[in-house]
């Protein structure tokens, strides 16, 4: 029996940059997943992923919950649930405890205080500008022509950092160009850019009422530099689930299962 054959519920996270689908078995274990770059035709992409999981042997007519900013477009879903509730549920199940979950996604960042029972106690969102989101890193790393992995490694290898004072992604990019023109070392600028994002997210976390341990999910959680600087700024160990990018879809699948 393939893993897909044991799926009893599905979750789809239609995020701003990627679409994730997760299948869970009867016990709520994550047994199948897919992750793709986001297609503007959200519903068609969701249908395609459903075809993929069925082709893998997943039974038909399973409960399905959609989350993420494109959730409303997934008409096949039995229910639409916010990514806040889904991330909290997914991370709680994965890590087995509450705390403060920081989810840095492509379009926004969220801080979710999760109870020991896995319920959302409080949350805070940065959804007004790109600063403090994955998009910020994409823009500035693209301007420096560095792949994301190299971007993070460069930040960690720096022997110092240059402060970035702009609170806007576009102005931060301009500031970066100005610093380069004045001969500031690239490594220090890159570290400063990471610090800038971390400071914004940390302020959000403190505003929501930081409750240890700090957990991280979302695509940006893959950045070692962000994890390191976040731990340094918040003076907290950062706990990471196995699949940080899948936690929204996983939580959705768990809710669909009724787990």
């Amino acid at each position: 029996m393939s893993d897909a054959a044991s799926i009893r519920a599905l979750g789809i996270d239609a995020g701003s940059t990627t679409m994730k689908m997760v299948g869970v078995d009867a016990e709520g274990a994550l047994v199948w997943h897919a992750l793709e770059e986001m297609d503007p035709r959200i519903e068609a992409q969701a249908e395609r992923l459903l075809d993929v999981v069925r082709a893998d042997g997943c039974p038909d007519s399973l409960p399905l919950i959609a989350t993420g900013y494109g959730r409303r477009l997934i008409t096949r879903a039995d229910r639409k649930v916010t990514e806040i509730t889904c991330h909290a549920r997914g991370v709680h199940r994965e890590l087995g405890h509450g705390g403060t979950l920081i989810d840095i996604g492509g379009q926004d960042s969220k801080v979710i205080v999760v109870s020991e029972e896995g319920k959302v106690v409080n949350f805070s969102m940065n959804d007004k500008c790109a600063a403090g989101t994955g998009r910020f890193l994409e823009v500035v790393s693209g301007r420096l022509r560095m792949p994301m992995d190299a971007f993070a490694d460069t930040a960690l290898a720096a022997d110092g950092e240059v402060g970035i004072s702009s609170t806007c992604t576009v102005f931060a990019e301009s500031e970066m160009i100005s610093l380069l023109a004045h001969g500031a070392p690239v490594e220090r600028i890159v570290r400063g850019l990471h610090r800038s994002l971390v400071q914004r997210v940390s302020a959000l976390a403190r505003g929501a009422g930081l409750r240890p341990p700090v957990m991280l999910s979302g695509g940006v959680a893959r950045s070692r530099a962000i994890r390191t600087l976040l731990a340094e700024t918040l003076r907290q160990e950062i706990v990471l689930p196995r699949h940080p990018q899948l936690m929204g879809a996983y939580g959705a699948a768990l809710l669909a299962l009724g787990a």
Partner: protein
Amino acid sequence: MAPPNPPLVPRRDEVIRRHRSSGGRLAAVLPIHYSRAVFRAHRMLPVEVWGPPGIDTSPGDAHLQSYTCGIVRSSLAFVLSGGLDVADIIVVPHGCDSLQGLGSVLLDFAKPRQPVATLYVPRGPRSASVVFLAEELRALSRRLSEISGIEPTLDELRQAIAREESADRALADLLDARPHLPFADADFYRVARAREYLPAEDFEPLARAMLAERVAAKRPGIPVVLSGLVPEPMNFLGAVADAGGVIVGDDLACLGRRRYAPGRSDDPWKHLAESLLDAPPDSTRGSSTADRLAWIEKLATDSGAKAVVFYLVKFCEPELFYLPQLRQGLEERGLKSVVIETDIAESLSHQAVTRLEALLESVS
């Protein structure tokens, strides 16, 4: 069973046209606290200007700094583009620094064709507040006399006060009965907010018609208290319903914080001042955090609300100042809350809806 049809609410422009065609004068009044009776004693209809929402604000932008709220920004643009030309006077109560600034811009710089009057509503409870505000209302009345040619007698003023107090009671009854009124929130607010422009004698029958539909059962859904200034953009109310919520308590500056009870004094001017100053706690009148917290908690307790939605106009400093302590206090009392900031000139964002839905999911 299908919900009853809400009473038909006359449109604002129809009301203005009708009033004008009968020879009546019109005052455009900005938020928030003022006495309608003073205007009515001058046979003048006060019509409130909360923006209006959804208009191009660029005509007034050059007068204002970037972080000015949408109500002030839209109001100034509306004046400059001739939207208030129908009014005989523009009255700007001192609700906040931005509104006070708007008064200055209108008086000293933009200078619309009609006269502009300001009204200083004292902040915080002080022994001199009633006397001061009573004198402000007298001064406003003198200014209105210059336009209306009427100097109301005290009896005429008392009659106007009685009409307004009767309408205020109907509004308060509506707010109290909200959990038991089987109308969609959008319909409820359409009727309740008609108080902003309808004459008292026209508003009261509408309110009473809605109250006549009261049922024993509470409306189904996740009950919430709505706090903030004004429910704009109004499609937010539809978003609450779509997310499974029902608004059962109102702490909006345009509505619930204007539950004016009758004043105590025999002197009608002091009577009016007391009525305004004794209204529910409000950020724009400098009420204490403790008073605001107690009031919102009471609204939640009385209505059975599970959460509070702070629906704020972006850059509204008086509201923002209170939020951390209010939210913490509510949390300590077991009430979750969320802050949703919007601009009345913009449409409701997806992110705002997500915040609302996440709150309702967390209490359901």
